[in-house]
């Protein structure tokens, strides 16, 4: 029997199993072949298409859509995967509304872009469903490269290196590969364990070994990797979470949103996953939206996103904001946390209204208290555990060109590297480009 939304505290089983299953189905169901044909027909095959320019991985979008029009989703998929080996995941999680679909001329014309993301999924799903890996390895080069971190950047780098004939060993600290594709990312965007299926499919290229439980600074060291491999690619992500420096932030019920999301992603039974009755998420990015929507889908009665600046400044796109609102999440802007109240456990959060003058945020002194038995912190991640000796830039690993760090034979990419948006698709582009640069360096 479900506990119901109004059960106090942080409890599991607020909703029935059926309700949970229904809530966590695909946000955007896949296109059927006829739907894909109709959606593809809307593409104008623009000259020097703006959507391609807007894509961090430069997928030839008009070409792959034309291949769908011409009845060859497999060819379309290959066009995508040649540029972006994680094109399947990107089709699901890319904020297309701020990338390719925002640039689509039909967005300008009608406010209704070609559904590039869903078409990309149609094509890549078709390739993956065929069970055949569409790429082959070049002749062995005898070189071996270490990749640290099996997230999108690491996987993209490893795949490209393997394709070019190198051997790759990926060192991953977590029990499963995939990085944020596996442990982050909204569950309703990546259903049916897609992240692992994609990794398994990617590894079919051959030549890639994954060593899980391999932690940089503990079981392995950068010096050791540099010594034992021909090159090293660091894609260690942002493992640290920014601290909430607010009185009461140490109370029970206050936790990191990324950990909450990871629990949801890894849960074998969502009915056993506890969630508060009154949840407040601090932050304004995609992680905040994901955590808030998941709380609601798990059965929380009231979910509020509290963000310190105005709506335009939110990291989450308007589309993501609307997604949250459509699930009944309340978005409060221009409020910052000043205290978490409660006897041992969080019961209320006190928020202070803010105003921004000349970019400087100041509290107005006016406060409001919201019931909050659960507070999720989504105020950003930071680089954690970067090896000594690397030059940093703004708390990230400084890189030049295609991911070259300050150290000889060490490259970096993905969220841990400076520059670029912290998006899956950007990480893939950086991993791929670093691989090309590593290859050019090793075979020259």
């Amino acid at each position, binding site marked *: 029997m479900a506990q119901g939304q109004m059960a106090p505290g942080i409890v599991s089983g607020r909703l029935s199993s059926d309700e949970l299953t229904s809530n966590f189905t695909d946000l955007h169901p896949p296109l059927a072949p006829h739907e894909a*044909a109709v959606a593809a027909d809307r593409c104008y095959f*623009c000259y020097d298409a*703006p959507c391609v320019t807007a894509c961090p991985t430069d997928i030839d979008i008009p070409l792959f859509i034309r291949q769908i029009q011409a009845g060859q989703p497999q060819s379309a998929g290959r066009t995508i995967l040649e540029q972006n080996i994680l094109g399947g995941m990107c089709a699901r999680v890319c904020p297309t509304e701020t990338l390719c679909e925002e640039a689509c001329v039909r967005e300008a*014309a009608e406010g209704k872009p070609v559904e590039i993301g869903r078409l990309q999924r149609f094509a890549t799903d078709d390739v993956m469903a065929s069970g055949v890996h569409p790429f082959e390895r070049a002749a062995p080069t005898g070189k071996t490269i270490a990749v640290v971190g099996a997230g999108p950047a690491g996987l993209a780098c490893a795949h490209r290196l393997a394709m070019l004939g190198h051997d790759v060993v990926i060192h991953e600290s977590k029990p499963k590969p995939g990085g944020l594709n596996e442990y982050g990312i909204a569950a309703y965007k990546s259903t049916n364990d897609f992240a692992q299926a994609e990794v398994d499919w990617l590894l079919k290229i051959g030549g890639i070994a994954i060593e899980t439980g391999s932690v940089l600074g503990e079981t392995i060291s950068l010096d050791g990797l540099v010594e034992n491999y021909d090159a090293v690619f660091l894609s260690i992500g942002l493992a640290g979470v920014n601290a909430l420096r607010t009185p009461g932030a140490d109370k029970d019920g206050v936790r990191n949103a990324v950990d909450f999301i990871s629990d949801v992603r890894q849960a074998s039974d969502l009915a056993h996953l506890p969630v508060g009755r009154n949840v407040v998420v601090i932050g304004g990015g995609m992680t905040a939206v994901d955590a808030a929507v998941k709380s609601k889908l798990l059965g929380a009665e009231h979910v509020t996103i509290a963000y310190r600046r105005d709506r335009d400044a939110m990291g989450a796109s308007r589309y993501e904001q609307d997604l949250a609102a459509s699930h009944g999440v309340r978005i409060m802007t221009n409020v910052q946390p000043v205290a978490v109240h409660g006897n041992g456990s969080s019961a209320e959060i006190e928020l202070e209204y803010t105003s921004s003058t000349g970019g400087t945020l100041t509290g107005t002194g006016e406060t409001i208290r919201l019931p909050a038995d659960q507070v999720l912190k989504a105020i950003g991640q930071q680089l954690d555990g970067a090896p000594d000796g690397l030059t940093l830039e703004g708390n990230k690993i400084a890189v030049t060109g295609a991911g070259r760090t300050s150290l000889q034979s060490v490259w970096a990419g993905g969220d841990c590297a400076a520059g670029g948006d912290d998006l899956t698709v950007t990480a893939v582009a950086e991993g791929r480009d670093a691989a090309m640069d590593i290859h050019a360096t090793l075979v020259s």
Partner: protein
Amino acid sequence: MADLTTDFLGISSPNPYWLASAPPTDKEYNVRRAFEAGWGGVVWKTLGEDGPPVVNVNGPRYGAIYGADRRLLGLNNIELITDRPLEVNLEEMARVKADYPDRALIASLMVPCEEGAWKAILPRVAETGADGIELNFGCPHGMSERGMGSAVGQVPEYIEMVTRWCKKHYDRPVIVKLTPNITDIRKPAEAAKNGGADAVSLINTINSITSVNLDTFSPEPSIDGKGSHGGYCGPAVKPIALSMVSEIARAEATHGLPISGIGGVTTWRDAAEFMSLGCGTVQVCTAAMTYGFKIIDELTAGLSEWMDEKGYTSVSQIVGRAVPNVTDWQYLNLNYVAKAKIDQDQCIKCGRCYAACEDTSHQAISMSPDRVFEVVDEECVACNLCVDVCPVESCISMVPMEAGEVDPRTGKVVEPEYANWTTHPNNPMAKAAE
């Protein structure tokens, strides 16, 4: 509401929309429902001579060309004339005509090229009370292999001969239906007129194979792995039909010969276009086969509304209005100079105009790094391709230059006078202007 009443060869119908001789008009049940739905007339499915009826294939009769959302753009068929006994059809026609005296009912006929065959069937058709006959000289498949249909329509002498027999043995209007599977449509039309035809109707269907199955390498529609060319119709054939109609309407020998227009009429606008090129009625088939008889509501309301907007009170006022504007290339005004103009406010920056112009031949559209597309007047020949490929309907227009302006492409002043190729200095056959 404009009055759509139509008088064609003295045959009256409440509107100019007739259902063409085809599967929808093959039996009483259908024709009654078509009349109830509001169709002005019906050309009954083609009758053959008495005796055992023809047989049709027992596999697919139709093949199609689609748009992306399976909008049917073109249809092809290998069906023959009616496969029901002659007597049954004649009895049904008589009953229907008696019940719907205000509607046009035309009998379509196809019998062997012998006078006796026509002499035998015509009195029986006359007995039904049908308003007239249409000679099926157009069907391009099956029957043509037996010396009928388009086999007759492709030989003007046969057309004239058979038409003459019909006029001799039948005293109501004779319409000759023409095949487009011929080089010069004016010749069969002229032959029909010479034979005494009261009108021609066109076009019948076009020889076609809709597609080839790339697994079995069989043409579609496929019967047990083999295919045969069929008759192509539907929206895709309209431009061909309009041109053929216009040729007959403006040719000296056939000008004024009444025409019933056929070929891809799908909406009221198509009908208005056919009528403006000289058609007194239009015949519809594919649209009715695709969407059902109910489309007549849009066809009649649309035509009526357009006539009201333009101030026309009778369909006779629109018949042939566009014919004087159809001319030969050599008479087109070479002093008419236009330039493409792109409305930047409407431009969505897709670049299709640029790709088309750049790769076609003129290189008359420039593209800036921030995707502003502009016409290079020095290169623009006003070919209209940019307009044709632009996805925004009114974004690019062709703006005529004023007389006295200098065309930056040629450096010449735009002359106010009309001048054509016949007097152009580059024409070795040019005649000096008198």
